[in-house]
């Protein structure tokens, strides 16, 4: 069924179609319309789920953890400060191996207060043991929630998943979305089959104390193996989804006109669609540029990134966040997996923080800078903040 939906409504539909039994949520701009839409689904009898209107995001995740451990599928949604408040229990959820699916609307962290898009919130949770999938349009928001349940719930994975969308650019913008039939989604995901659960018939303690000589390290290692294993499952499930629902997702990296490109821009989220537009116009002028959009930041697809680097002479990594370390996160991880594999220059473009618009004009300038570096064979600097007020170079 074709519908006109915002990103947040698409997320709510993704959740509805996946039939979670318990939803625990706390409002935060710009996530609110997800949990409002779900509330009206339940209020109208269109969705059969228990809705816990918790008093904080921390409790939202804690309630999801407890409900999922009791044996039901759960869903929640948050953003920025809400995600940061959850930090402790995010790590709990993954350590407890509970395949919770959560929508995260990327928003900047205060101070100064800003409700607009920025990826610091999710990047700060990259080590929480969650699978992270970044989306580019409302269709992908909806579809990714369905795929995420299927991947996360596999007993060889059992890792929670964040389905991430950009604030306002997706969350509050309407697009045409193909909403799949319930029956088809039911058949695709299947009934929830928990690997373990709280059951008075089988008394056990979940998450008890482990001494240093006990298997703490082994349990962490099993999580690392599961995250590696998730790469295979993601590939399988995305292919199956494409076939069942007539879509065309690339599992890890969506490439656009990267063949024979002198320089490739590597991005996350909605920057991808703006960049594709710029690539089209620049290609028509004869510039050999392409764009690659990473979908899964966790697990990080090292092999696919290395293959991407083999296709080009330069990679420009755009980050909508900064990490106060060796460049922003996507850049740092890209460079790290390319080390010892290629000598091509890689440069970090930090832009769009706090929701500052990333325009085609600015991306065109970045592409031109990238092409210059591709030709020189060496980057003028590793990290460039693009679009700072008063900086004539990018205005």
């Amino acid at each position, binding site marked *: 069924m074709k519908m006109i939906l915002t990103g947040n409504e698409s997320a709510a539909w993704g959740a509805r179609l996946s039939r979670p*039994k*318990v939803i*625990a949520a706390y409002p935060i701009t710009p996530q609110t319309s997800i949990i409002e839409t779900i509330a009206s689904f339940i209020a109208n009898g269109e969705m059969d*789920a*228990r809705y*816990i*209107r*918790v*008093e*904080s995001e*921390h*409790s*939202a995740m*804690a*309630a*999801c*953890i*407890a*409900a*999922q*451990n*009791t*044996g*039901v599928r*759960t869903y929640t949604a948050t953003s920025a400060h809400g995600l940061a408040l959850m930090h*402790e*229990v995010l790590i*709990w959820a993954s350590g407890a191996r509970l395949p919770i699916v959560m929508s995260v609307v990327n928003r900047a962290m205060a101070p100064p207060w800003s409700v607009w898009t920025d990826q610091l919130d999710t990047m700060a949770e990259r080590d929480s043991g969650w699978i992270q999938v970044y989306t580019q349009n409302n269709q992908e928001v909806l579809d990714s929630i369905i795929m995420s349940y299927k991947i996360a719930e596999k007993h060889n994975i059992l890792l929670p998943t964040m389905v991430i969308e950009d604030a306002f650019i997706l969350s509050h913008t309407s697009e045409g979305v193909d909403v799949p039939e319930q029956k088809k989604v039911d058949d695709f995901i299947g009934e929830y089959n928990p690997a373990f659960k*709280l*059951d*008075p018939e*089988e*008394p*056990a*303690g*979940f*998450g*008890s*104390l*482990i*001494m240093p000589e*006990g*298997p703490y390290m082994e349990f962490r290692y099993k999580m690392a193996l599961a995250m590696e294993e998730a790469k295979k499952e993601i590939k399988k499930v995305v292919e199956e989804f494409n076939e069942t629902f007539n879509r065309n997702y690339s599992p890890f990296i969506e490439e656009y006109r990267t063949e024979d490109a002198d320089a490739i821009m590597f991005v996350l989220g909605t920057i991808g669609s703006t960049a594709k537009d710029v690539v089209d116009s620049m290609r028509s002028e004869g510039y050999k540029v392409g764009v690659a959009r990473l979908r899964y930041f966790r697990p990080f697809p090292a092999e696919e990134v290395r293959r991407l680097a083999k296709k080009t002479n330069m990679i420009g990594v755009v980050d909508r966040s900064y990490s106060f370390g060796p460049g922003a996160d996507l850049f740092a991880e890209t460079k790290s997996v390319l080390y010892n594999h290629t000598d091509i220059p890689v440069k970090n473009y930090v832009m769009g923080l706090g929701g500052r618009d990333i325009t085609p004009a600015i991306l065109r300038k970045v592409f031109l800078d990238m092409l210059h570096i591709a030709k020189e064979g060496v980057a003028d600097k590793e990290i460039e903040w693009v679009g700072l007020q008063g900086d004539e170079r990018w205005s």
Partner: protein
Amino acid sequence: MKKLTIPEEEHMLSGHTACLGCGATIAMRYVLKALGKNTILSIPACCWAVIPGVYPHRTLDVPLLYTAFEVTGAAISGIREALDAMGKEDVNVVGFAGDGGTADIGLQALSAAMERGHNVFYIMYDNEAYMNTGIQRSGSTPMGAWTTTTPGGKKRMYKWEPKKSVAEIMVAHHIPYVATATIAYPEDMIAKLKRAKEIKGPKFFQILSPCPTGWRHAPDKTVEISRLAVQTNVFPLYEVIDGKYKISIKPKNPKPVKEYLRLQGRFRHLTEEEIEKIQRHVDENWKALLKKERCSQEEE
């Protein structure tokens, strides 16, 4: 043949790692005797997070979800809603948390869970300080007590503020059942738990659980001190059903508070004047409780 005053069934096993004479362990034993095997427990960081022993050991015959410190209210909400969604409405859901996890770091989640009205038990086993981390002051530490963060010293930096009344905070949530209990009165505690079991909605218990290690008393005095807490009116036993107060035990001639204090090393620094001040505080609280009970009766 035997004549027992509390249920024989046992769902707490031997071999746990609680300190000698641990009151919190006795509290757990009674709670499970009263509620039975068809129960799921949620326990945050607290003594009871380590009492069951090291992985892979369990000391309870019921499933137990270990959680982060501040989430008990949210966790029992999640368990309850999941069970109800699965049609398992007969399973008891119990949050079992210490006073730090209840009066301090977990108060927000507790308040919200009670306000939302889930069909759960929340049991605060009150040993009046952060005992698992080594006897640090909590909001539930009583007036005059020594703890490792109120160590006295030259400035006599003890805990001089009154103990927070968590049961009264719960009454303000208009939940159907609130009760206090202590381990020296198992029949009273179990009768209350069984009454509460018949009520659908949030049930809150504050169980005074003496801690030999933190209160600095001999381990064989745990029950005696618990009894003295009631006989001196330091910790009155009462229940509040649908907002109506009923005092469970009214000591005919309350013993002086001094008798309760003198058995515990955490109070041994107190001067006569300070003991007097604590006595006045206890008397005022008791009078206020009597008034609440009277008001409840007048309404009827």
